[in-house]
């Protein structure tokens, strides 16, 4: 079980006073727990979104890059934003927060709109808010249809 403390220099929305979180990865499943170092009663369940959503991608803006201390190569168009694959490339890991429905786990959701990016080298973390409205804050975990089709016309 891997166990690393990440600094969230900007906090996590709703929990702005907590800046350090311990990531406890599970061994057999693509899940982790993120626990506040300052208050161990505060925790989140995280899931690697690529397991259910292989096409999921995250675009990072300049401010977030700074937080993560990414080493980016500016692309040909001169834009400094960068696309990250779902599979961790280099040192950035992508996780999404699970909102568990305790009465009916099948109704649990994943927050794809605001994933957590963790830089395993600098041990910095940030919760980014994506502008892509196809990604929902309450994406159902149990899917009947492919992600993109299901979200057509969805109200975010």
């Amino acid at each position, binding site marked *: 079980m891997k166990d690393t403390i990440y600094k969230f220099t*900007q906090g*996590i*929305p*709703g*929990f702005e006073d907590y800046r350090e979180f311990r990531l406890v990865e*599970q061994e*057999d*499943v*693509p*899940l982790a*727990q993120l626990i506040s170092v300052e208050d161990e*009663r*505060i*925790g*989140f*369940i995280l*899931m690697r979104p690529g*397991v*259910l959503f292989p096409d999921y991608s995250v675009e990072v803006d*300049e*401010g977030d890059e*700074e937080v993560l201390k990414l080493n980016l190569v500016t692309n040909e168009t001169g834009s400094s934003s960068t696309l990250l694959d779902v599979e961790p490339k280099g040192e950035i890991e992508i996780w999404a*927060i*699970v*909102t*568990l429905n*305790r009465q009916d*786990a*099948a109704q*649990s959701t994943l*927050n794809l*709109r*605001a994933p957590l990016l963790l830089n395993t080298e600098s041990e910095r973390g940030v*919760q980014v*808010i994506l502008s892509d409205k196809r990604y929902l*804050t*309450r994406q159902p*975990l*149990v899917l009947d249809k492919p992600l993109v089709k299901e979200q057509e016309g969805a109200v975010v």
Partner: protein
Amino acid sequence: MLVLTRKLNETIKIGDNIEITVVGISGDNVRIGIVAPREVKILRSEVYEEIQRQNREAVTEDEFGQSLQLLKEFRIIKEK
């Protein structure tokens, strides 16, 4: 709240480092350009509030083991 009237392409300066410019007006929509230092976080406030709410709802306490078990039972997670 300080309220100012600006025309298209006019700018407001906040402190030394932040400039806000009206770059477009179309019906109910106003396009705003912002120049600010990198460390200043700029977000549409309703989106930030939605993420705050979602995080508060998602927060867990001591029930991680139970939660994990629930997720496994529903075969949400592919077991290796």
